[in-house]
């Protein structure tokens, strides 16, 4: 249904508009920008931070709205009012999934905020694989989706490699610098706009693994800490007060499940919906196909990681799916839904016993699939050490860090991994 303030992104706009994209995951989104550029869009990743963002969020969004909405909208308004961009030549892009969580209202809330700030003419492109609205100047077609898919797989791999290298590198900052270089290289590659050769992609995977393996490291026992939760605060340093950096500074190795799992989760939910409630059989077939295809792609990454052998590979999604059983039904599909529960279990089973479950304050789905599942998880896995951290404009770092410190104080360092060279 058309939205009140819906402003389409026209073909003319494509020529000279800058599209601003919020940073949920720095590396992934740089690569996605690369894909967008290959199709002739001018896109820019918003990497701003600072108190003005929250201020603007509080000013233009209902204060009880979830924190990610407040941040993303605050960041957009802050950018548009900064003078750096011509608001008449700027469009905004937002990624969202849709569904029963209030997060599916982000686009509407951005538009309301824009209207309140007197910039209702700024088009907002919703990037949703469910295709919520039509923009003539921006069609999400198969080639684009294909490109973004690889952006996500590359991003996941880079993220995992940085996480597994950073605590051990002899020269601090080396892993991140290498990731930066790879990110630039891959973005350029994806930005060339040619057909993507899967052979080349796999070559890249291997090369990345070798490059990271080559970084001089000193292995030592560390505490492994898994980070799960609501998708924005889990990933975005802006949303979680730079959680990862804090954990690394405390000497921990962070383990963050990849973004591809969230995509797989969305696809899997369509399949579950059909199983539970019936519906369009053809659509179901397509979803199943897409699901199997994407699982295959992830399993290729896993296989290549195992072949190389220096790093822990993620768990196949088909295995993660099974983890939820006995805890929560796959029908729980709002927000991060059953995936959040499954991820905590997957971490626990793969030896990551310390888990931070992040959520915006008052996050509705996480009452159930996050905090609501901690008791059964701890009961069946007594060695798991979970802490729930709420993020909010008023929540302070000192309170959050104190709780994280408690979790770390209870953590038992795991021996250095055996297969590491």
């Amino acid at each position, binding site marked *: 249904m058309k*939205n*009140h*303030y819906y402003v389409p992104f026209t073909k003319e706009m494509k020529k000279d508009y800058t599209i601003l994209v919020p940073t949920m995951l720095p590396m992934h989104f740089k690569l996605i920008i690369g894909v967008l550029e290959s199709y002739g869009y001018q896109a820019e990743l918003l990497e701003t931070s600072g108190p003005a963002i*929250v201020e603007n969020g*509080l000013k*233009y969004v*209902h*204060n*009880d*709205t*979830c924190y990610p909405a407040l941040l993303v909208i605050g960041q957009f308004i802050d950018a548009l009012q900064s003078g750096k961009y011509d608001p008449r030549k700027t469009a905004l892009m937002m990624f969202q999934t849709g569904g*029963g969580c*209030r997060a*599916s*209202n982000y686009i*509407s*809330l951005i538009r*309301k905020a824009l*209207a309140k*700030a007197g910039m209702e003419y700024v088009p907002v492109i919703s990037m949703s694989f469910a295709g919520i609205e039509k923009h003539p100047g921006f069609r999400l077609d198969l080639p684009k989706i294909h490109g973004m898919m690889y952006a996500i797989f590359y991003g996941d791999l880079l993220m995992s490699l940085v996480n597994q290298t950073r605590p051990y590198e002899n020269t601090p900052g080396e892993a991140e610098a290498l990731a930066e270089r790879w990110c630039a290289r891959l973005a350029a590659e994806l930005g060339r706009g040619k057909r993507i050769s899967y052979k080349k992609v796999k070559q890249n995977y291997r090369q990345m693994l070798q490059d990271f393996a080559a970084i001089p490291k000193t292995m030592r026992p560390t505490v492994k800490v898994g980070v799960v939760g609501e998708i924005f605060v889990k990933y975005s340093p802006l949303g979680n007060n730079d959680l990862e950096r804090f954990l690394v500074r405390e000497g921990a190795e962070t383990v963050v499940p990849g973004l591809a799992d969230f995509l797989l989760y969305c696809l899997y939910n369509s399949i579950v919906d059909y199983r*539970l*409630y*019936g519906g369009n059989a053809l659509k179901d077939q397509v979803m199943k196909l897409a699901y199997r295809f994407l699982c295959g792609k992830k399993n290729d990454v896993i296989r290549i990681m195992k072949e190389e052998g220096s790093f822990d590979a993620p768990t196949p999604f088909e295995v993660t799916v099974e983890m939820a059983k006995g*805890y*929560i*039904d796959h*029908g*729980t*599909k*709002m927000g991060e839904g059953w995936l959040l529960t499954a991820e905590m279990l997957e971490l626990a089973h793969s030896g990551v016993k310390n888990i931070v479950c992040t959520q915006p*304050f*008052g*996050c*509705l789905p996480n*009452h*159930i*699939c996050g*905090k*609501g*599942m901690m*008791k059964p998880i701890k009961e069946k896995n*007594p*060695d798991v050490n979970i802490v729930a951290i*709420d993020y*909010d*404009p*008023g*929540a*302070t*770092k*000192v*309170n*959050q*860090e*104190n*709780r994280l*410190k408690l979790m*770390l*104080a*209870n953590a038992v360092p795991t021996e250095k991994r055996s297969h590491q060279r």
Partner: protein
Amino acid sequence: MSEVLYLGIDIGSTTAKVVLRNEKEVLFDCYERHFSQVREKTAELLERIRPLVEGKKLAFAISGSAGLGLAEAIGAPFIQEVFATGEVVKHLEPDTSCVIELGGEDAKIIFFDGGMDERMNGSCAGGTGAFIDQMATLLNVTVDELDALSEGCTRLYPIASRCGVFAKTDIQPLLNQGARKEDVAASIFQAVVNQTIAGLAQGKRIKGKVLFLGGPLYYCKGLRRRFAETLKLSEENAVFPEYGRFAVAYGASMYAEQQQERFLLDDILERIKASQGQVVLQDRLQALFENDEEYQQFAERHRKADVPHKEIASYAGKAYLGIDCGSTTTKMTLLSEENEILYSYYASNQGNPVEIVREQLLRLYELCGSRIQIAGSAVTGYGEELIKNAFSVDYGLVETIAHYTAAKYFRPDVDFILDIGGQDIKCFKIRNGAIDSIMLNEACSSGCGSFLETFAKAMGYSIEAFARQGLLGKAPVNLGSRCTVFMNSSVKQSQKDGATVEDISAGLSISVVKNAIYKVIRAGSADELGQHIVVQGGTFYNDAVLRAFERELGREVIRPAIAGLMGAYGAALYAKKCRKSSLISPESLQRFAHTAKSALCKGCTNQCHLTVNSFGDGRRFISGNQCEKGLGLGEQKESLPNLYAFKRDYLMSLPEGEGERTVGLPLALGMYELLPLWHGIFRALGFKVRLSGMSTRRTYEKGQFSIPSDTACYPAKIMHGHVQLLIKEGVDAIFYPCLTFNRDEGDTDNHFNCPVVAYYSELLQGNMEDLAKTKFLYPYMDINKPKNMAEVLLKLLNEQFGGFTKKQVASAVKAGLAAYKTYMDAVKEEGRRALAFARERGKRIMILAGRPYHIDAEIGHGIDKLATSLGFVVVSEDSVFDLAKPQKVKVLNQWTYHARLYRAARYAAEHPDTELVQLVSFGCGVDAITTDEVRSILEEAGRYYTQIKIDEITNLGAVRIRLRSLLGALEEKE
């Protein structure tokens, strides 16, 4: 080698603790408030151990939330405080099964049985030392006095302890209505206990030997008693050790023992001193005043807004009295015929407004002598009814009207009034000489006067001195604009960063203002407020707040010199219409005596807690009642249609029926709407259907042990109690399905349930151990697809019980859906009947718009009855929404219940005789989206939007003020 001593330093949010020991014994310990002067205090305490450590080496470690920053700054070993506690207890009392430690702002629990489990309170949880401090401030006693008072308790009132702000809203009216301080004091402790159990234990039972640690538990005997009683602990199992206050510091000293590095005392002091220069200047704001000159100009401008005063001794004739009995202060003014102020009074009501007013009246009569006759009197504010009854005041008027009357007198073209009092923020727009829209702060966001006062006290200042400090702040800290509890931790953070008291004071003033503008008024710009803004309320006496407000708006405003007296001034003006005053005579006043007793109303199942005030001469005033029954007046004269009551009666009259097997349906969340459906299905299948019934406060308490997420909404949390009840009744199965989709009513983008309504069963299954005693059935299905329902139910029931046929289940589903339709039709028909009734008799109509579960007597707190007692015909959103066209909204219209809200708002917008009042449960994330929409639908049509936020406990006094303000505004308009 010389002896090594172990030094543990624990710096919490409010206190600093030091323990010095050797291998055998503790040599020194102390516990003192640090008033945010973390580094200074630490250095001071360390100086005290100097005689003990002369020439000896020290190993030391720091712990505590405020110690974190210090440890970082001086590079000292740090141990997390809960972990430290755990270590100490394992060492000193190895047979402990659970530790409860309450600190200044943190609450912690450690379970030792079945694997150690350490937890801290979440970010939104009161129930700590700071909370007790706040409450003591409210009662105008010290914490020790509070404790002593609690000894004399005879009954307990339910008080919310989730955050101090909520509790205040509960306590204030209790005090204003004359509840005994002894009972309130004990109730405050009980609230802390409940909070600890619900917020921390989260489903894990507290049993065995329990150790209670931390300052508040050391000092407050009353709190100890409440814990021991509530947890049913025997004397030997409730342990309050002597070292309770120092446990963390002790733990830190144990940690110090493991450290390699050794220090001399002077090394440590040196480091602390050196760290004082490191002030983080991040996240700071512009100073309120650049220089003194700027301040003088500002002060000069505001001095001009004054009213004429007249010496009371030189006046003779008629005079008019206005009383404003507010939440924390009592204000009075006496006006001459020419509206000059003859006498005024402004002071804290010290928890006993009746006594204050009595004293003042005595004094007034003395001053008036025979020269001045009090010809009229009016009272407004929280204590309006109590004072009106106690002293036979001529008029009682709602606060908003009183304030507008005063502001109008000041500035006839005023178009916006903002009043920040001790407890509330009120603001209203004026259009065409009538109040146009009223906004009051929600219970959760009261960053108001009492909030500043509490902070001032916590830092060891009077409010006046604290405000003056704020004017000097060079770089005010940015504290955000959230509720008090959050603010506490923001302040903690800034202290950690080394902010000065000046900067914190200024920062707090700015945050109060931001809270008012962005959270209560929800304005984007100054123009949205108005051209001629009058600000008032005691909080605006604080120049820092006033300046921050002007700064934030970029506009000059008027602050009358009598900012704090405006309610009383307005009341006095209002009283001028009086012909013959009935105010208590000087003679009766001499004999006046006031006693308050508590009682339980037996009028209905609600069992309201009543407070019966007697005034010596046989007159009585009863408060605390939800309806008129408790007043001893019997039934209301005229009963007005009330859809909430209709729905309750309909649902509760569904027959249980007979059957071999009993299925239990918890009457909570979505069940409130779909009960006829599930009831119909199970009856058709031959089940006996047992309902858990309407909720009471007891229902909640029965289930609170198993709530894992205390920030979920009350309607969800109360579900635990309903399920517990059904388990206890021994039903064969409990049924609450998971419904991603609600009914498709065909007018929306989608038709979801909210995540909590949809999947709460998953949470129950994971957290309620007792569910193992029965079958808990929570299938996933789509209630828009009878075939899907039948398939799912057939499979489920045959798995669980066996013996059902496909045909049987299909026809049962059909019967259920028919019953559901009959119910919804009946609701709509009754809605139409109510509308017609109102229109025939010229009654006002109120759409009390919420969710189906808001009809619950406990969740809705009887607001529907309150509305009918004020003369409204009450209809529900689901009874009238179909009379309006589908409403276009600016957001994704994807939840069934919420779509009805929009359409109901459309109906109200189109009908001048219909008002909409929206009920919002605290913590309802979806309503953050719907409220703005509903408001804009109504306001675009030039109508009032009234929102009432409800939670565990809602004080009907505040709701009454809101509804009466609405009524007052409507009357004014006519």
